[in-house]
Every structure is written in C-alpha cells, then in structure tokens.
C-alpha cells in the first residue's frame, strides 16, 4: 500500500474574489517572471500542509483572507482551510472537496505539537496527515546510537522535507546537509524511516497493529455484547424489524377499515328493540296499578281492624258498666256531708257531668256494637280477599315483567353489546399496534447505531490488513540500508545518464549520512552550482523512482522551485558567485538547454511510469522563464503562466487584480 498526495486545487479566498490554481495528476508546471507569485503558490501549499509559517507577499496581504487546499490523501478527498495571517490558529479540515464544503462539518486540528491550553483534547494536524496517508506513526530517537535515547514524535513535516525543495535551497551546498547537527541526525533517521529500515520499524508496525487490533477487539466485544443483549432481549434483527414495521402498518390500516364498517352496521336492527321496550313499559304500568290497589286495601284492612278492636273494647267496657251498676247501685241525689270539712257535697251536680244510660240502652248499644263488629269483619275479609287476589296477580305481572326485561336485556346485549365489545377490541388493538410501531421504529434506530460499530470495525480491519501486509513485506524483504542505497545509486546514475552530464560515474551514497556522490565526490563538495542543482533534483527523483518499485513511507509527491537554478539557460540570471563557480559551470556545460530539457523529460517519463502502474504521483515544478522551444513541448503540463508586463494578455501574477 503506497501513499500519495494529490493536490486538486489551491484557493486564496480574498475579499473581492477567490484566486485559484488547479492541479492535475502527474506533472504540473508553473512559470513566469520573477516576483509574480509562483513561489508563493508552493509556499502556500507547504503552509497548508502544516509549515510553521507563511511569508506573505504584499499582493496577498492586501486582498487575501484565508487559504484553502483541496487535496486527495490516498483515496480520501479533504479540504484544508488555514488562516494566512495567524499561523497559530486552528486548521480546519472538511471531509470533502472544496465545492461541497458548505454541507459538511469541519474538524479542527492544532497546527503544531505545542500543547494548547485553549483547546485541550484537540488532535494535531500532523497526526491527521500521517493517519490519512496511512504512514506509520512512530517516535524517532534523537540519538540513534543510544538505546536510552530521548524520543520525539515523527512529524509529517519531517517526511515532507523530501517532497519539497524551495528556490533558496536547491543547488546550494546546504541542501542535503544541514549545518545543524541535530537536524542532520534527525534527517538521516527520517530517511531510514522512509525506506522502512529503521531498527524499530518492524516493532513499530507490530505495535501499531496491536493497538489497532486492540481497538478493533474492544469494538468487536462491544458490538457482540450489544448484539447479545439485543438478541437476549429479543430485539429483532434489522430486516425483521423492517418487516414488523410494515406489517404493523398493514394491520393498522385493516383495523381502521373494520372500524368504519362496524359503525355502519350498528345503526340497523332497531325495530325489535323498540317493540320489546313498549311491552315492557306496559307491564311495568300494570304492576304499578296492582301495587297501588294492594296498598289501598292494606290500609283499609288496618283501619277497619282498628275500628273493630275499638268496638270490642267498648263492648267489654259496656259489659263492665252493667256489672258495676249492679254492685254500686243507684246513685241518689242526696246531699252528703264532706268527711273532711263541714261543707256538703252536691252529688247531683257531680252526677250531671256523666251519662247514666239505662241498662236496656246499654244492652242495645252492645248489640249494635256487636253487629258493627260483624260488619267491619265482613269488610276486612272482603278487602283481604281482594288483596290476596291482587297479590297473586302481582306475582304474575312481576314474572311477566321479569321475562320482558330479560328479553330486553338479552336483546340489548345481542344487538349492541357485541358491537361495543367489537369496537372496544378494535380500538384497543389499534392503540397497541400504534405503540408497537413506535417501538419498532426506535428499535430500528438503535440497530442502525449498532451497525455503525460494524462499519468502524470494518474500516479498522482494512487498516489492520494493510499494516499486516506491510509487516509481511517488511519481514520478507527486510530491506537493508546498503541494498536500498545501491538501488538509489542505480536510479541516480540512470537519471544522470538521461540528463547526459559529462562522466556520470562514481555514483553512490555515503553510508550513515546518505549523501549522494558523483565521481566519488560528495554532493556538498561539488563546485559547479548547476551540477548540484541537477544532482539535487536527481536525488529527489531517485526517491520517487524508488517509491514506484518498493514499499516506502513516502507520499509520491514532489515540488521543486526553480528547476533551472544555476543552469544559465536564461538570459538574465545573476547568481551569487559564492554558491557556484562559473568556470566549473562552464566546464560541466550545465547551461546546455538540452540538459534542462532532459530534466523535464525525465520527470515526465517518470510520471508516465506511475500512470502505467496505475499509481498516483504529482510533480509541481516552478521556473522563471522556460525557453520557447521547450514551452511548445511542455504546454500540456502548464497550470499557471504569469507575466509581469501582461504580455499576450497573461495574468500579472497569482494575485492578478491588485493595483500597485
């Protein structure tokens, strides 16, 4: 699995308009007069890929707001957005092309490894790039010879150094060999890393695999636990749930239909009900009449019984009166003396207050009373008879009424109860179904969430698979540095032959520092600046070529600023006499335009080789003024061409609307 960086588009979003350069797969050439912003384009790309700072040039400063890079890292397209005035501001990354930025949320990253108190927990931009390019995230020993060396994090910038050379560095003696010793050591370590020959490479990959495997297993465990839980709670599978929801929908529909038809049926069948109801009310009326007559008779019986008793009491009193009269005797009208005082008692006055009927009269009265007793008894008996009759009638009426009521109830039950029950049942079931449907839908959501786990696990699996592939290859090939250097030296020699320099012999790399040698002279000791430029480009091209053929941690991306530096191909090139010896340049004949052309051709051939292998690579080459005869051949690769005099209607520079 090889890594690749493919720049699609660079945009400086300005106040009035956006300034855009589009890039293609393979070779891209930018050329134009000096100070037209060619190098700024490369600087911006470098900055958007995490460079510490970006030196603004006046035109951009006056109109720009922020810069955007639409880039494909391996397979995934991202849009990187960064403030151009403040390099410490967070870098935003959108998981899409620049056109679709509006519809995706961005993820923010810290631009450097410096810990930020303001944004704790945010990831680093470098880690994002390393991750996206599927490079191994490792720690680099600051002192490789010591086993207890301090470790520092590998930064994407360390790798990117081998992808970009700016115009200040190309061809100089310092290029490839920094004055800073610590940096030199670091660079050699990164070089080893690129070729997977670091001592710790295999263990790092293993570590990476084990970390990812752990993560994967944890996720898998989670997934299984949840799955088991869902299964145990009879949660229903995704497809079952789908079926459940649709079948619930169908049931709901059919029950609603049945309810409508039920409502239509209820309104018929009323006549029988009415007939029974009228009979019932008649019977009830009759019952009430009988009850009333009975009550009347009861009252009559009571009253006549009391009267009869009264008569009987009177009879016994009259009889007693007669017997008392015999005992007490006639009450005389004599005046008698009071036994207490000396007054007399007037008996006749006392006597006059009472009735003193004759015995005959009393006897007559007794007989009359006896007759009346008989009469009242007759009335009582009569009333009793009627009462008895009514009672019997009442019991009959009651039973009839009972029967009618039962019939009525039964009828009511038969007619309306089943409807009610049915209705109840339907309504009940409808509510249940609706509730159930809701539950199914929410279960589906949970299932979806659950499946998300699976997707994550799958992506981890792919990543682990890649790492294991790599591990296999590492173990199988176990590339040794000397073999790598041999291969690189072959590439470099092939390149030099293609350029047709004089005497392309004695080509090799130094052990330990990995610096190329020509005619057994180390790079920094070559006196001709033009030759150093050719060698420098060759050094980078050898990397690109090697990446095509072997497993490397290298993103197949190369930006070279001012390809023709020191090559004296142009009329008005003035170079510092310190950096290059014009005599040596003359001797090497580096200003031969065919050599310059050969460099381009070699690079174009290299990109074609990539195409043939269906691999992605990108070269971005910048130069001042490409000779006209070469321009004709290269025109297909030119992505930007500026002219400070606006010759032939060419834009004045990358920022083309600033009035100076």
């Amino acid at each position, binding site marked *: 699995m090889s890594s690749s960086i493919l720049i699609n588009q660079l945009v400086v979003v300005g106040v009035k308009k956006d300034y855009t350069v589009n890039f293609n797969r393979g070779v891209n050439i930018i050329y134009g007069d000096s100070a037209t912003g060619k190098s700024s384009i490369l600087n911006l790309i470098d900055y958007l890929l995490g460079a510490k700072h970006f030196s603004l040039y006046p035109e951009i400063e006056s109109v720009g707001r922020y810069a955007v890079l639409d880039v494909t890292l391996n397979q995934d397209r991202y849009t990187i957005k960064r403030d151009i005035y403040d390099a410490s501001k967070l870098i935003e990354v959108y998981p899409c092309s620049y056109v679709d930025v509006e519809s995706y949320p961005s993820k923010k990253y810290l631009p450097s490894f410096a810990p930020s108190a303001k944004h704790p927990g945010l990831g680093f931009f470098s880690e994002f790039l390393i991750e996206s390019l599927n490079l191994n995230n490792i720690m680099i020993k600051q002192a490789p010879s010591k086993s207890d060396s301090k470790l520092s994090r590998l930064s994407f910038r360390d790798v990117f150094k081998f992808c970009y050379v700016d115009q200040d560095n190309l061809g100089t003696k310092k290029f490839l060999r920094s004055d800073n010793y610590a940096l030199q050591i670091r660079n050699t370590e990164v070089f080893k890393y690129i070729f997977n020959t670091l001592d710790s490479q295999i263990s790092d990959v293993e570590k990476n695999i084990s970390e990812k495997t752990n993560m994967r297993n944890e996720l898998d465990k989670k997934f299984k636990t949840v799955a088991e839980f869902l299964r145990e709670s009879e949660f229903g599978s995704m497809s079952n749930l789908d079926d459940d929801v649709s079948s619930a929908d169908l049931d709901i529909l059919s029950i609603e239909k049945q309810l409508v038809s039920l409502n239509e049926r209820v309104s018929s069948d009323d006549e029988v009900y009415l007939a029974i109801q009228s009979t019932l009310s008649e019977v009830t009326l009759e019952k009430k009449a009988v009850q009333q007559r009975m009550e009347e008779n009861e009252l009559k019986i009571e009253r006549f019984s009391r009267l009869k008793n*009264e008569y009987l009491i009177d009879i*016994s009193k009259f*009889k007693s009166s007669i017997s008392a009269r015999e005992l007490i005797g006639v009450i005389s009208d004599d005046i008698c003396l009071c036994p207490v005082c000396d007054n007399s008692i007037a008996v006749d006055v006392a006597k006059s207050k009472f009735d003193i009927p004759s015995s005959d009269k009393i006897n007559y009265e007794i007989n009359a009373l006896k007759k009346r007793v008989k009469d009242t008894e007759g009335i009582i008996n009569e009333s009793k008879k009627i009462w008895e009759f009514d009672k019997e009638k009442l019991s009959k009426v009651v039973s009839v009424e009972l029967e009618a009521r039962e019939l009525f109830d039964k009828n009511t039950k038969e007619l309306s109860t089943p409807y009610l029950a049915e209705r109840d049942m339907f309504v009940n079931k409808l509510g249940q179904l609706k509730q159930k449907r809701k539950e199914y839908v929410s279960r589906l959501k949970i299932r979806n969430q659950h499946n998300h786990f699976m997707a994550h696990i799958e992506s981890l699996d792919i990543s682990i698979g890649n790492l294991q592939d790599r591990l296999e290859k590492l173990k199988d090939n176990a590339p040794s540095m000397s073999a790598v250097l041999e291969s690189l030296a072959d590439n470099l020699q092939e390149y030099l032959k293609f350029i047709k320099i004089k005497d392309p012999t004695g080509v090799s790399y130094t052990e330990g520092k990995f610096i190329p040698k020509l005619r057994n002279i180390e790079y920094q000791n070559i006196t001709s600046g033009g030759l150093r430029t050719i060698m420098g480009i060759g050094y980078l091209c050898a990397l690109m070529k090697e990446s095509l053929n072997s497993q490397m941690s290298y993103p197949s991306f190369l930006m070279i600023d001012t390809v023709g530096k020191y090559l004296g191909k142009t009329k008005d090139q003035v170079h510092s006499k310190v950096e290059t010896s014009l005599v040596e340049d003359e001797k090497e004949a580096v200003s031969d335009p065919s050599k310059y052309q050969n460099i381009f051709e070699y690079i174009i051939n290299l990109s074609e080789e990539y195409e043939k292998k269906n691999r992605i690579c990108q070269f971005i080459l910048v130069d001042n003024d490409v000779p006209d005869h070469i321009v004709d051949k290269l025109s297909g690769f030119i992505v930007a061409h500026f002219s400070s005099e606006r010759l032939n209607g060419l834009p004045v520079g990358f920022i083309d609307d600033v009035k100076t």
Partner: protein
Amino acid sequence: MDLPFIDTENDIHLNLSVVLLIISKLGKSNRGVLKLNNERLHIFHYLVKNPIELNKVLSSLGKGGIILQAKDAYSITSISPNLDPLFDRGGLKSILSILISKGLINVEFKKNDGFFYSINDKGVSISKGLNGDFFQEVQLICEKLKSVLSITESKLSQTLNQIIRKESI
C-alpha cells in the same frame, strides 16, 4: 247534648269502678302509708284508661312494660289518644264526690300534700265484685303501677309530658 250513641268514656258506673279499683289497689303502700292525692290519682286514672301511654311511661321510667292485649294495641285510641281528661279535673272531682257520698272511700287531709284517698271496708267488698274482662285488665295494670308509687308526682308528670309532647310533634 244527646248523641245517637253512648260514649263509654262518659259512663258514670264505669268511671266510678275504675277510680274505686285504683284507690283500692294503690291507696296505701305495703307499709300502710297513704299514697294517692289528687295529682297522682289524676295521672293514674289517665294511664289506666290508656294502656299504650302507660306502657311508654313505664318503659321510660325503667319499670318494664305490661303485656298489651291485641285489641288495645291495635285500636284507634292507640294511634290517637284522647288527651282531654288530662286537663279536666272536674270529672275526677265529681267521681270522688259520688264515691264519698256512697261511703266507699275515706279522705284524709295532710297540710303539705293535700287530700289523700283510701278505700274503706264497704269499698273493698264492692271492688271485689268487679271482675269482668275489663276490670281484670284494670286490676293487672294497677298491680303494675305499684312499682311507680315511690316516684314523685312531679317526676311522673314530667315523664308523661315528655311522651305526649313527642307524640304531638
């Protein structure tokens, strides 16, 4: 005023007999103390003639009841007793006058409690002859009333008043 029928309430012999029986049974306590003055005699006379009311008074005083005869309990008087005699002292005075003139009872005057009545030998011999259905009933009631003799007249009349008031509401 001549009505076409005779009212037993106004029959002189009946009234004389009842009062004679009350005096003979309740005139003296077991220890021979005179008990019947005008007030108590008046109340007793009313109660004896209205067994339903008597029953209520007895139960209200906690003295138990008498066994009512069906014809007494289930009569017209039982549902609407005649209260007039309670406010008529003249009737009882006349009866007492006649009994005295016939020489059937003795009268004694006590300064604080007024006149007291008791039966004499002649009265006893006559009262023994009074034994029809009605008189037997009166005698039974009088036996029952003996338990009430120890109760003061005021308490007795208060109880009766309460019962009458309750019924008239």
